[in-house]
């Protein structure tokens, strides 16, 4: 993330310029024409109004992409927070979590097709997906929690089943949903869709609600207690089983909500869950497995990073580079990149 410490408002922009210049060679390798413009923008004697306009264009493009990245990062945050809650509590690596997201999007599509209204979908789908998560926990996963390998394999099996049931019903072709006609706002000289801003706002509100829930309600207290020390919680009479179910339900519901929100701005298809899952896992790991704040921060960084990368290269390559960057960051931080670089205080 770009942290501008200086008082000058121009600082973030120059950091961005430097960043784009650094990225430019990579873009050149992949034929990104925007990066060519960056390379040719000089300073000092070679300054000309023509080149200056190009630079401003790139900044605008970058900011636009960064904004998209924030929206996207908030969606990843919703999914990762659910994943993190589930993992922190039950030690279940939920490989099927991405499918909850996919189900949210698919349900949204069907509801929009039946009722012509996206808002009812936004209410119903998360609850439906959350309910499914709850049931899955109760009837399938209850017996195998706390056995990492087994849960990975079982949730993988579940993911396969969910994916292919949807494939049978929904079909293999990606479908699109028309976003509600909310118009555009003018931001930085470009038109930005209001719907995306609404989506971002909804995500922020939801995350705040979740944080409040965890801190100030009894069930939230129970969740945190069971996370900290399950046996003690049991001894204190907390209904651990119900807490497990509730956490799974909430986590799944959050992912489903992300799916509904994102449905009008992306391609809905049966594999979209397995495509986004690794990103969510990255965010959880980078943010720290038991820190929800860290997870949200990591998700946002991921989104913004990908947005910035995609200024100079194709979206696919941008995502690739984002994954590589985050991967190296995780490896470096855990001191496991090179054993000799092990830092004090890290394992």
């Amino acid at each position, binding site marked *: 993330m770009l942290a501008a410490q200086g008082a000058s408002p121009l600082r973030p922009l120059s950091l961005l310029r430097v960043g784009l210049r650094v990225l430019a060679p990579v873009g050149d390798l992949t034929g990104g024409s925007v990066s060519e413009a960056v390379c040719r923008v000089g300073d000092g004697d070679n300054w000309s109004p023509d080149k200056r306009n190009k630079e401003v264009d790139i900044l605008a493009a970058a900011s636009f992409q960064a904004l998209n990245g924030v929206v996207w990062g908030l969606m990843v945050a919703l999914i990762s927070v659910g994943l993190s809650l589930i993992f922190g509590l039950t030690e279940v690596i939920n490989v099927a979590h991405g499918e909850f997201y996919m189900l949210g999007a698919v349900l949204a599509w069907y509801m929009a097709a039946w009722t012509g209204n996206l808002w009812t979908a936004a209410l119903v789908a998360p609850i439906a997906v959350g309910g499914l998560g709850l049931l899955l926990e109760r009837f*399938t996963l209850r017996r195998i929690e706390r056995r990492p390998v087994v849960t990975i394999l079982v949730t993988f*099996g579940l993911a*396969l089943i969910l994916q292919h*049931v949807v494939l049978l019903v929904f079909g293999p072709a990606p479908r699109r949903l028309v976003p509600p006609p909310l118009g555009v706002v003018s931001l930085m000289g470009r038109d930005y869709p209001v719907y995306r801003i609404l989506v971002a706002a909804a995500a922020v509100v939801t995350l705040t609600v979740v944080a409040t829930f965890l801190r100030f309600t009894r069930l939230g207290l129970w969740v945190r207690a069971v996370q900290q020390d399950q046996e003690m919680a049991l001894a204190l009479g907390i209904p651990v089983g119900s807490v497990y179910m509730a956490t799974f339900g909430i986590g799944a519901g959050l992912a489903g909500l992300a799916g509904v929100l994102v449905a009008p701005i992306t391609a809905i298809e049966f594999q979209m869950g397995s495509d986004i899952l690794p990103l969510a896992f990255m965010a959880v*790991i980078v943010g720290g497995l038991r820190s929800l704040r860290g997870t949200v921060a990591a998700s946002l960084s991921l989104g913004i990073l990908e947005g910035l990368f995609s200024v100079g290269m*194709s979206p696919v390559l941008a995502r690739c580079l984002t994954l590589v960057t985050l991967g190296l960051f995780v490896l470096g931080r855990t001191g*496991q990149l090179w054993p000799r670089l092990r830092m004090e205080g890290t394992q």
Partner: protein
Amino acid sequence: MSLRAPVGLRVVLVGLVIFALGIGPTLLDPYGRTLVVEIAIWSMLALSFGLVFGFAGMLSFCQSLFFGAGVYAVALAFEGFGWTFWWGLAAGVFLPVVLALTLGVFLVRLRGHNFVIGSVIASLIAVYLILSDSEFTGGDDGLPFSLPAARLGSLAVPLGDDYFKYYMVVIVAILILLSVWRVITSPLGRMFLAARDNEVRLEFLGYRPERVRLAAFVLAGAVAGLGGVLYASVFRYASVQLLRWTTSGEAVMWCLLGGVGTIVGPVIGTTALVMAKDHLSSWLERSYPIFVGLGIILVVIRFPGGLVGLLSGRRVLVKSTAHGEPSG
């Protein structure tokens, strides 16, 4: 501890091999022969996973990455670079091993679920890289290619001949199987088990667990890569779907069903499931992965030892380094 396959299943395996080599080719119709070739190739992938998980305790979803790397190396060597036959084959063997070494150095340092996620992400990165240059790699549509003429000295190798392909694949697969068996029963193989079961003790004995696991990882990568080369030689089509971590997952299923922790298990599991898939009607064919998923859940919860475990009376799922804790 490792599962020793019951004598009965070993006999079955040997019987299958004899059948495949001997009377099979004359008894089977072309479709049957293609099925045997498929089974041989996919059991390489399953064996690769069995090696890295059953023996070295790492739950890896990137075996399909090495398989696909073998396929794409051959495909691109011939189609993209126009190399001659033997050089293309060499590329197909070389690339997966190099990839396994490079990735392995980083991945084997990871514990438990971090390793799993790392392997998934590695596959994903490879998929994205391939998709990013669709012109060169064929992108989403895949890359069909043709094999150049091959000569062995003054003899022309009959690559197009049905029987030749059959024998080539079956013989290479058997050789790979024997080599892996040789490694597993050697001291190195014992070290794999040690790294899986009790790392601390292995370290006390003076070995580096990461090196041992890296060796297992590279060996498994080589096996998968060779499987990919075989696939490329027979089917002449490179598809990006081969690299997805969900394809690795199918191999997980074959291996689990047969019995993790043995050599026999992955092969038998693959045989059973590929044949089962083949016999299903067309409707079930499309929903086949649903049964794979159900099967995985069932096997893991009820029959952790797979077929081998069932028949030998043991119901043990092989421990993995997922906990990162020493046992016993």
